[in-house]
């Protein structure tokens, strides 16, 4: 095995083009588990932790460009105000030690259907930036997840950043697990409400994280955007049904398909209430 240690992104992309078998490693919270348990023996490890460009974020035109190598701890501390939904998801990742090392780029690279940040990225309309020696491209998050632990990354590409809008309305993330720390989601849900946008997505309840298009359409068409009033229980229940209907979960060690479907409906109902309350508050503040 080779250990490759580029210090610039250009160098890393050149290395990845030459060695497409090299497995990128940042926080190591997924890759090292596979190595420790002998589940994987890549030809090379490509260490991304010395590349300064990947560990930066910037803000312009109402968007945050979040470097793939920014840790969850930094994301929570430095961007919690402007990306509240993503920060909520980040706070549920592992433990302090894991959040100190783990990154959104790593979550995307692993592309687990249970990855905590995916529902937020989908619900907010994030774009994933990929780079190779051939150039850069960005993909909508929903086009990035292609199967169970599969993504749209080409063998010579690296995930460099995620672009996502600064929150202007309500954002929520919720997750079911046996305790608050150190749990892989039994299921998870994210919702983002801002003017002209209603995003909602499920995690750990289908082969990939996925948007729930019919439930989003329902919110966009039926929410009282112009005169934001509290929502009737019947409205929330209808939303919960649409979310639950979009799930195609499996039975596994963490929970049954029936439980996941039920729990998603509960998460959808609760988070809609909270996100709508925030949206109403922000709408009042602007009036």
């Amino acid at each position, binding site marked *: *095995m080779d*250990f490759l*240690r580029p210090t610039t992104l250009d160098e890393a992309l050149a290395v990845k083009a030459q060695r497409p078998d090299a497995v990128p*490693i940042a926080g190591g919270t997924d890759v*090292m588990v596979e190595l*420790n348990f002998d589940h994987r023996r890549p030809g090379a490890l490509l260490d991304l932790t010395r590349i300064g460009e990947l560990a930066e974020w910037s803000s312009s035109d109402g968007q945050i460009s979040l470097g793939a190598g920014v840790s969850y701890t930094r994301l929570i501390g430095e961007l919690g105000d402007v990306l509240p939904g993503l920060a909520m998801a980040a706070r549920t990742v592992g433990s*302090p*030690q894991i959040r100190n090392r783990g990154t959104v780029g790593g979550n995307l690279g692993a592309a687990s259907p249970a990855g905590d940040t995916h529902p937020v990225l989908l619900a907010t309309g994030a774009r994933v930036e990929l780079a190779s020696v051939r150039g850069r491209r960005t993909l909508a998050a929903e086009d990035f997840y292609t199967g169970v632990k599969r993504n749209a990354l080409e063998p010579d590409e690296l995930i460099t950043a995620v672009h996502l809008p600064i929150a202007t309305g309500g954002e929520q993330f919720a997750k079911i697990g046996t305790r608050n720390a150190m749990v892989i989601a039994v299921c998870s849900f994210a919702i983002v409400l801002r003017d002209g946008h209603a995003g909602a997505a499920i995690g750990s309840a289908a082969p990939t994280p996925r948007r729930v298009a019919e439930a989003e359409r329902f919110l966009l068409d039926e929410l009282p955007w112009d005169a934001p009033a509290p929502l009737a229980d019947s409205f929330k229940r209808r939303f919960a049904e649409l979310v639950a209907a979009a799930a195609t979960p499996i039975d596994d060690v963490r929970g049954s398909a029936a439980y996941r479907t039920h729990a998603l409906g509960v998460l959808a109902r609760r988070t809609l209430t909270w996100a709508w309350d925030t949206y109403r508050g922000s709408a009042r503040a602007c009036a």
Partner: protein
Amino acid sequence: MRLNVTVNGERRQADDVWEGESLLYVLRERLGLPGSKNACEQGECGSCTVYLDDVPACSCLVAAGQAEGREVRTVEGLAEGEALDPVQQSFVDAGAVQCGFCTPGLVVAAHDLLDRVPDPSDEEIREALAGNLCRCTGYEKILDAVRTAAGAR
């Protein structure tokens, strides 16, 4: 490969390090520092927690090569000579140690908490120690130890 790393203030070198090896393995098996414990090897238990460039991390999830040129501080590096760090002394005084396997990781995690938050609430202590599993104590004495250490520092 050869690895150069500063551990507890001392420049150390290890040879014949396998490229897929963890920092934990290097510390325990190559540098003679068995304080950090090897239990789950997947970041679940926190027993291998060390500072990597002043940030607590599970050393089982750090590839050895990622530590090249970096500074590592292990539980062995907390005491000043014979004088235990207040966190260590509080664990002794509170009876927060039973089998002792989780203790090094808990001590490092608590040490970091008190560096960041000198007078933590119980919620903050629980959150800070959420990644460290103890199967003996039921955690109450550990919480006592952290509260005592906060007062002593």
